[in-house]
């Protein structure tokens, strides 16, 4: 029994297919092509071989950006893998008012990176809330340069990213926790296993798959960071220009009246290969898991 004419599927998919071709497939190919040219926004350009990649390799800003990305990942991955899990456990039980708490914990996710970065920028100001609190409580006697020191600025952006990400990953864990077997928990509790022991021996193995997926997501997102650093440190990356991310360099290269689209594309291709590393790791792990079982 035929349920439709042969052209119906294609007709219905037409909008999505146009967008797939125009804004996904073509830009992917074109980014690679552009990266081998010296195309500028207004003046055009021509093929220049690997020159952009040679420039990229010797660009000190790229080194700073890669170093910053690594620091971002090393701190964000463990924190955002475990804290949201604890948070999900906290809001898992349906006690009175829990919907309110869940919604409020999700607020930082809903807010744009620009608004929350502006909020944090005011708190981290030389004369802002944090400095005033630290000084009145006597922890420090001098102003802490959260926004002007090369490393403190990076750490501030990381703290902001962790704070903003908590609710997002909490939500991912919430659905995973539904599949953790309660009878195991009960049996372990009867056998005298405490909360901490049950967390490590039952909850964590129960959400292992989600946990791996989430840590890969965090790593990829750490490589894509832009707005947080751009707002906290300014467009050029802090006082010394060292607090840049890879995406900030893409934006810097491409903006201005005659943006260097070719060079910006080379940085984009480099970014793609970086983000592919955690994804490859994920597929490897999945394959191994399938072979085991």
């Amino acid at each position, binding site marked *: *029994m035929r349920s439709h004419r042969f052209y119906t599927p294609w007709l219905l998919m037409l*909008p999505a297919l146009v967008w797939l071709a125009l*804004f996904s497939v073509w830009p992917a190919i074109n980014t690679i092509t552009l990266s081998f040219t010296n195309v500028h926004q207004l003046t055009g350009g021509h093929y220049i071989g690997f020159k952009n990649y040679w420039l990229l390799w010797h660009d000190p800003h790229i080194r700073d950006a890669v170093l910053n990305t690594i620091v971002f990942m090393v701190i964000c991955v463990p924190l955002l893998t475990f804290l949201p899990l604890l948070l999900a456990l906290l809001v898992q039980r349906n006690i009175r008012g829990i919907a309110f708490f869940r919604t409020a914990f999700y607020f930082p996710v809903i807010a*744009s990176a*620009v608004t929350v970065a502006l909020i944090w920028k005011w708190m981290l100001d030389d004369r802002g809330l944090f400095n005033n609190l630290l000084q009145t409580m006597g922890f420090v006697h001098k102003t802490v340069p959260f926004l002007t020191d090369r490393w403190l600025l990076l750490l501030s952006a990381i703290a902001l990213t962790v704070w903003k990400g908590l609710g997002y990953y909490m939500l991912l864990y919430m659905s995973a926790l539904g599949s953790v077997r309660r009878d195991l928990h009960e049996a372990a509790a009867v056998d005298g296993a405490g909360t901490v022991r049950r967390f490590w021996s039952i909850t964590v193995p129960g959400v292992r798959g989600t946990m791996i997926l989430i840590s890969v997501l965090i790593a990829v997102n750490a490589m894509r960071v832009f707005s947080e650093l751009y707002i906290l440190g300014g467009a050029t990356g802090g006082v010394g220009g060292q607090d840049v991310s890879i995406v900030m360099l*893409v934006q810097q290269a491409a903006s201005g009246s005659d943006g260097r689209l070719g060079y910006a594309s080379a940085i*984009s291709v480099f970014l793609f290969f970086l983000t592919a590393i955690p994804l490859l790791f994920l597929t490897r792990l999945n394959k191994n898991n399938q072979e085991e079982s």
Partner: protein
Amino acid sequence: MTATTAEDSREGRKRRVRGTGAVRHPDRKGRSPIFDAPTPHGLFFRYLALIIVLLISIGPMLWELSTSLKSKAEDVYTQNIQLLPHHPTLGNYGEVQNTIPVWHFALNSLTVAVINVTGNVIGATLAGYVLARLKFKGRKLLLGVFVATLILPAEVTIISKFQMITSMGLGNSILGVCLPDMIAMTNVLLMRNAFMALPREVEEAAIIDGANVLQRMRYVGLPSVKGVLSVISIFAFIGAWDDFLWPLLVLQSPDKLTLTVGLSYLNGQWSHDPRTIAAGTMMALLPILALFLILQRYFFRGVAQGAIKG
């Protein structure tokens, strides 16, 4: 130590007696009343932890709100921290209006958001339905292409999209900001997964009754994917309202900016007063939080139905 153990076991015994039988017959949701019964001080610590996390997550926003309501006469830099404004005033919000065309920016952001929601709802529903329910040549291959695009972070192709939008003559226009994200491939796949869950038999019955593809999608498919569809709409709206990098690249003239880009210029370039910047921030933040509060029931319900972006 011994006292607590004794007390624990006594209480345990009491509860066990009260709930006899329940251990072997957990309720509908698979929970046994004994294991899940909260103890009074367990509950106390749970609420304590919830309140601490609440302060961490919305505290900064409340501080910004408070700053935005402080008058010029009040010292916002003082070490003698004032949590609440002495004489709350909306003056700073007026100051934002005098500094930047904030309502115009908000209207631009709203336009982008509405166009993105409409495009994604229509485009993703149609394509998702076809990929899930119709048989045709090349379906597997096409699905593979859709999935493959997921490994491409948006930032990687942004330069090429920028070049394309400019060459189409849409640089520095709101339409140019909307266009690339009007149909997101993730949403097509989410809708496909949602439509997959529908049992085959229901649809076959509709085919026998002579329903055509569009009727089947509208009356058989759509009612069962409402949850996922609402999550997609909410995400599309928030995504467009919050987006920064793309409109920052595309838009140049100050009268065409979206709210996020306008705010980034307000900060430092057009104003140095933290009260004004705080007021501007609140004008971008409060509408989106209010919208989420109104829709949060549909959002969490849809998420529970499996609509999660990965």
